[in-house]
């Protein structure tokens, strides 16, 4: 559905200001409507934890949380995030490492580390919604996150271990 505003109080079609919350901070970015959240985070806000790997929603390396739920930042327009809360891997460790981050270290849940921020955000997103996931829940949560090095078994182990720690 295309809404054509009749009143003069519209913005666009060029670059517009978008106010959103990123890692707890209120920010306003000036972006063209076609700019993805991923490029906005990386290039405008300097948050390069989310990675650009496929840029078409197949690999999950750009996973961030939007209003607490995992989302592919490469498939999300920045303008669609107005007034929403975006969390990236950089925002997890404001008060020390998040249990998922610590579990990734303990379980060697990475090799090259390029998919790691996305994997971690998928796991954090899962634990927010389900504090006691079983292995099947974890598999579902990270099945959209590709890892070419094959760190998968350790990623699953890390997520399960972190859930036990979070519960305590």
């Amino acid at each position, binding site marked *: 559905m295309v809404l054509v505003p009749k009143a003069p109080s519209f913005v666009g079609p060029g670059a517009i200001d978008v106010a959103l919350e990123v890692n707890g901070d209120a920010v306003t970015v000036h972006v063209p409507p076609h700019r993805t959240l991923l490029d906005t985070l990386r290039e405008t806000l300097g948050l390069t934890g989310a990675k650009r790997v496929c840029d078409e929603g197949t690999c999950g390396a750009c996973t961030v949380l939007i209003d607490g739920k995992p989302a592919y930042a490469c498939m999300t327009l920045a303008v669609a995030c107005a007034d929403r809360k975006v969390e990236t891997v950089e925002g997890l460790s404001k008060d020390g490492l998040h249990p998922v981050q610590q579990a990734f270290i303990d379980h060697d849940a990475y090799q090259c580390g390029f998919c790691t921020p996305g994997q971690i955000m998928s796991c954090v997103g899962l634990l927010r919604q389900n504090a006691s996931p079983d292995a099947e829940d974890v*598999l579902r949560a990270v099945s959209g996150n590709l890892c070419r090095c094959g760190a998968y078994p350790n990623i699953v182990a890390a997520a399960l271990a972190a859930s036990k720690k979070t519960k305590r």
Partner: protein
Amino acid sequence: MSIKVVRTKSEFEGIVSEETALVEGTDLRSWGDDAGLTIVGKRHTRVDGIARVTGRAMFTQDLYLPGMLHVRMLRSPYPRARVRKIDASRAEALPGVRGVLHRSNAPKAAFRGEETIFRDEVRFVGDEVAAVAADTEEIAAEAVRLIDVEYEVLPFVPDLEEAMAEGATKLADGGNVSESGKHDRGDVKRAFAESQVVVEGTYRTSTQLHNSLETHGAVARWDGDELTVWESTQHVFGVRAGIQAALKIPYKDIRVLCDYMGGGFGSKGGAGKYTIVAAIFARQLGKPVRCFLTRDEENLAAGNRSATYQTVKISSKGKKIHAIEHLSWSNAGQGRWVADPTGPTNGLYDIANVRSRSYKVLTSLGALASFRAPGYVEGTFALDQAIDELAERMGEDPLALRRRHATRMTDPVTSLRYSLKRLLRCYEIGEKEIGWHRRKPEGARGSALHRRRGYGMASQLWGGSGLPPAYATVHLNPDGTAVLRCGTQDIGTGTRTVLAQLVAEELGLEVDAVRVELGDTNSQYAPISAGSLTVASVGPAVRLAAKDARGQLLEAASGLLEMGTSELRVQRGQIIGKGHRMSIGEVLGQVENFTVIGKGSRFPNPEGLSLKTFGAHFAQVEVDVRTGEIFVEHVVAVHDIGRVINPLLATSQVEGGIIQGLGFVLSEERIVDRPTGHVVNGNLEGYKIPTVRDVPRMTVRFTEDADVKANNIGAKGLGEPPIIPLPAAIANAVANAIGVRIRTAPLTRQRVLEALELSLERTRPQAAVRST
């Protein structure tokens, strides 16, 4: 310390060469199995773990410099064409475009044996035609579409077997096929004539795409005459050499950096065209320039594992394999070399009569690049299946047959004695862990009526000895912390952690007291992080550097404490002597600021010995005979790689190799549209790499004996071994399960079903299952 010239034989990805290197001082004997090591050989989480999990790890792709321009390439839409005319005026007129380079205006720059970056004749879909630098990537991409090119389309060959055929379009004056490797042993002709069982088979493996998650790319910046290049690479010094060759500038003015890198798997061995283009634009435009490939470009122009066509003829006499003939053709695309799939045939098993030939075949596709054990994965897929088929026809257990050819302690190719060979031990462990006794020659019923279960195994041979030259320094600070500098890189294998452990062990520090600085050509030289040679090349130099630092520290302590050096030792950051126990900081703190600098170099490999790694994989699978789906239930991987420095990281690496091997054998296949020469699945949607759901139960074991003759740390390489035997082990398990052999990788459901259809006549039990 005096400098010595040494000559040494080295093996890199199956190719043995003579090297001359310089070394300093004297080498150490290897730590023995009883050395009482407290850090080396123990699990340790990665020293760079926090950077990796917080997003702070800076990959080349994460570098955004102020004022940086972005490059996108125009790539050929034709598999072969002459570029008649380029008109870039519409692109240049686009606001935000800062420069366009193409064959008519680009400065001369030698690149991999050619004199130019942009060829007059483009030779594959994806070949570079022009490059645009612009303020943003979006503008650059738009400008690329505005470049007008007139092509004269030429005849092309989009397929390996088409290129091999009589009358194929010739892509080079000498024809498409050229010999790239040969080995002869015994008398194959006579041996086949006197054999009792002879088995022949044709094997095909598909083109595998690396798909490193970080694509190939570089950022270049000039400061006056000095060029700094950040590149996602396995070899900063290789990139430096490529830049020097292209731009003719001295080494002192080139600095190449690679801190974290997002996977390479062999494909990131030196400067790319993107590197040179970024450097040229950066100089011309006076701004930093970034050039990264998109995912699609990565899968066209950044390398691949060659598809192969192989024939194997193998025979037995009595209870032993008597002769083998292995012929192999590899799709090089537009590459200048190929890997040798006959390597395992020549050297893995002790077989009396061997004839092998391998051939490089040119096609109108992107060049190959090394991909984790290039050649050996493909070759073992054919060899170890042929052995299973022979065993089946001989009525022998395939493992028992292999054992008869795994006992000799000399290398059948060179006749040199192995420094260490624990292949039989690998078999012993694997056999037990998988429960090999459950394997029945005719396979077994699986967990449902329509599922069949089977067991298979295969062996692994690879080099991994490491090689000089490699150098390192250890700077010991007055507070008792140390910085190791070495020009190697950590491509995800855990190099930083392993080297920190070596320094800590030798120097007497805690691992956390060691910082490791890698990936910088302003450090000491280290070889490419490939060929499973990093730890075995760099590790011994690092240990010597730490030992040198420890010696100097003890001399300093001896003067300050007025005790003989022989009465002192360093342990976990403490200097311990009779009645003394002081931290290094306390001792060195007594003098004005002072840095101990230890140096170490990699000594040559031992003369007259063959240094190899061995291993074996065992697999249990189920096959759904209705859908052709293969379920891998359990993989046991056992490797003989000498000393394992860090079992936690080594296990991760083996699991990763297994998973990548599963991709090769079950799902990964580049598909080329033959009428147009286009890759149709050059993305992560259509090209299927394993996901978390494809991971089987895995058991990883090591034989663990140090190879004390190999080098002073007793370790060999592990990067490649765990992918080599996996595909053949799976294929053998599938053949055992369903009674029909599939000789083409990947073993897709379609191929499984086709094979089952063809064999219905022969496999009555399954026909009976169908009718019930």
